[in-house]
């Protein structure tokens, strides 16, 4: 059994996208949440949830695919590593929170397992990695490649979070728009 909770604040997805640049926009327009057992059998459900929300707020197919895969990688890491196998009691869950702001889509994956030291994570040198046909460690590399921002907040045994952001428009273009607004 799993608990699924979807919360919408009532603002439409098109509003989220079309009102880019409005100065009086609230910080967060919509939130969607899913709590689900930390089992790989649930990856498809998680991907469906995340991709449906990404489609709803206006991302094109390519970006929906990137968000879906980045979420899969983050959740797979939790399922494989967050809970030591000897400590599992079958009740481990993970939470997925999606926040829609006027300019960005934020995906937060939270678990209560043992976490890890984010400073110890080194992105693989892909040239060397591929030359030696090394196996594993691709998930974090893909997350950082697919999303605009990836950030970790670890409190082992209490709460570990991976936060990933995808902007609705290219970040450089956003800065240009901000710059143009300031110059007016």
């Amino acid at each position, binding site marked *: 059994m799993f608990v699924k909770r979807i919360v919408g604040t009532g603002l439409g997805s098109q509003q989220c996208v079309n009102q880019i640049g409005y100065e009086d926009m609230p910080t967060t327009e919509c939130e969607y949440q899913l709590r689900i057992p930390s089992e790989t059998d649930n990856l498809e459900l998680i991907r469906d949830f995340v991709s449906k929300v990404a489609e709803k707020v206006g991302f094109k197919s390519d970006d929906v695919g990137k968000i879906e895969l980045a979420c899969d990688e983050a959740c797979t890491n939790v399922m494989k590593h967050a809970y030591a196998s000897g400590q599992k009691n079958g009740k481990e869950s993970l939470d997925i929170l999606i926040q829609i702001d006027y300019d960005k889509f934020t995906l937060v994956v939270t678990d209560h397992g043992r976490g890890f030291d984010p400073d110890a994570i080194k992105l693989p040198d*892909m040239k060397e990695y591929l030359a030696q046909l090394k196996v594993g460690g*691709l998930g974090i590399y893909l997350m950082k490649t697919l999303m605009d921002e990836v950030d970790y907040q670890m409190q082992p045994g209490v709460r570990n979070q991976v936060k990933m952001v995808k902007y609705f428009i290219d970040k450089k273009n956003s800065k240009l728009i901000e710059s143009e607004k300031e110059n007016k």
Partner: protein
Amino acid sequence: MFEIKVNEAGDMLLSGRFDASQVGYANQFFDKVITSTVVDFKELDYISSAGLSVLLVTQKRLSEKNQQLKLMNMNRHIQDVFRYAGFDKIFVIA
């Protein structure tokens, strides 16, 4: 749903969505591959790094005997995943 079928020629046809939940099932097939083999992605909709790792392990094992996997009929999304991971440089993709 993920499925692997092997035809009479030994070609592997993948279908569905290949993620971490399917690694054990996939290894039952890929562990038996000992010579160069065609892997047809025509009906595969999705792959994550877990699926890529299964392919990489097999490719690594085969390359020691100068054999390889030959991947074909990938959809555009899967081609993109291979490109993001740099895997387009280590597999023969038709």
